[in-house]
Structure formats: C-alpha cells, structure tokens
C-alpha cells in the first residue's frame, strides 16, 4: 500500500466522467446545396418527388416516403413560428443572455421547421403562428451556416 496526502479527505462520493466525441461532418448532396446557397444569402430547400414536401434545411430523403429528395426549391426568408420556448437558463459559453426566445420556424412553402432566435419583440408578445422575417448579418460575415441569419423578427403589425 502506498501513502497519500488525500487519505484524510473523507470518502469519495462523486466521480467526474466526461465524454467528448470528436466528429468530422461531411455535407451530403442535399446539405451541400443548402450550405452553398446560404453562403450567398439564399435559402434552398429540397422537394420530395412523392409527397412534394419541401425540406429546409435540406434532407437527402423524405421522412414520410423514404425516397430521395430531388429538386432544389428556393424559398424566401419569411415564415411562421410553429412552436417556441423562452430560455431562462444560461448556456455555458453562449453569449446570448437569458431570457430569450428560441422558436421552431417554418418558412413559407416549407413542410419542416428549424430552430432559430426571435428578436425585436418582447418575449411575452411572441405567439404561435406569428409571421416572421429573417434579419441577416452583414454580407461580409456570411459563412456556411444558418447563423448568417441573426434572428427572426415579427413582420410589422402582426404582434401589436
């Protein structure tokens, strides 16, 4: 047996067991269309040849039909709030200070939705079905991602 200065420190009751998984994501054909478009400030969805559902961000296959999606469809940066939540708990390393609204946004002409932030409105004025429009970052900051959009804001007049 070896000696240890911690011996008087009392029983060990907890154990840290962190798990870190390193991934390298390679965009497939449909994600590639979406990402190259949003780099240029455009929003591209993909349509299912069976049920005609439009997915944005693009999916390589239709969740309903299981078949490969085919056509690229350009969408506007306007849509509706499908659902939302008010975040009150700070997220480590996240510069956004709570409380803030995260919403599931379905763009006009799309059949799925994605998460984004809601801005330029009081949290308690956000409603389901509210019409919203993207507020983009300056073009010089555009990269391959949805955070080229800073947040979505209500379309005028809808929230008063």
């Amino acid at each position, binding site marked *: *047996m*070896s*000696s*240890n200065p*911690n*011996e008087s*420190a009392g*029983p*060990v*009751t*907890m*154990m*840290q*067991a*962190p*798990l*870190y*998984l*390193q*991934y*390298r*994501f*390679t*965009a497939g*054909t449909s*994600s*590639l*269309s979406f*990402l*190259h*478009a949003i780099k240029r400030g*455009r929003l*591209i969805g993909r349509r299912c040849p069976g049920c005609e559902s439009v997915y944005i961000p693009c999916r390589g296959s239709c969740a309903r039909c299981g078949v490969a999606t085919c056509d*690229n*469809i*350009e969408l506007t940066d306007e849509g509706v709030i499908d659902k939302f939540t008010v975040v009150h708990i700070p997220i480590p390393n996240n510069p956004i200070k709570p409380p803030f609204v995260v919403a599931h946004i379905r763009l006009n002409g799309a059949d799925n939705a994605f998460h984004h932030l809601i801005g330029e409105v009081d949290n308690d004025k956000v409603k389901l079905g509210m019409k919203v429009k993207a507020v983009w970052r300056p073009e010089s900051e555009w990269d*391959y991602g949805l955070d080229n959009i800073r947040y979505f804001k209500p379309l005028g007049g809808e929230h008063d």
Partner: protein
Amino acid sequence: MTDTLNELPPLTQDFELGFTYTRSLGPVLSRFLTGLRDGQVLAARTRAGTLLVPPPEFEPVSGASIKELEPVAAEGTVLSWCWVSQPSSSAPLNKPFAWVLVRFEGCDGAMLHALAADAKEQVHTGMRVRVRWAPERVGNVKDIACFEVHKQ
C-alpha cells in the same frame, strides 16, 4: 437553382460533442474508489465467500447487495490481452501498450486496464502484473495509472 453536385466543392466541419457528466457512486463504488485514492484495492466479499474485483453492487448469482469490502494485494494475473501499437490521444499511455484483463490475486472477476510493456513479446496470458499507482490520486479508476510487469 440548378446547382449540380459536380459544381459544388465539398464541405466538411470538425466538431466536438461533449457530455460533462458527474455521477454519484453509491455505497460500493464510493468505497472502492476511496480505496484507490488511498492506494488500496478493495474486493467485494460475496456470501459464498468469493472475492470480486472490481466490486459489483450486487452479487452476480444471488442478486444480494454487496455489504463487505476488504483489501487485497494490488497484483494479479493477465487473463486476456490486446496489443495497441498506435495509442489514440485519449489512451492511458502515450506509447504502445496492452489492454489487459487482470484477475487480482485470490479473487474472481477481472478488471480491464492498461499494461505498460516495452514490446508485445513481453505480454502473455497468465503473466503476473501489479498496480502502478498514479502519483496524484483523486478517487478514480485512473488512480491506477496502469499495470506493470511483476518480476518475482
């Protein structure tokens, strides 16, 4: 849009998904890891009288709760092994080593851990090994830095 795949350069992105778990240990593993911190290997004593390292919380056959733990020698025998010629960055040793299944002296069960060895030729089933303690211990299985060849 008429982008075709041929015109679009591929895009890749590295990212890390982290889960910063802290778990509570319960009565048996608390005592086992407290023992490791204090430089002692504790075995579970079953009602049939056998000793198990690492200690389970319940007896494997009867399902009864483990109540008794007792110290055993920090040495044992290699039951099985696998040589790692190219350790990953998260491996317990930063040079080639063996993963070994060690049965502690006088015990049943076996512990999976790393064995420090200079070459694959040094490792064989049935060889005697002993614990190499970590210089600083906190109450974790890594308090056993690795096993090392036990020359008698």
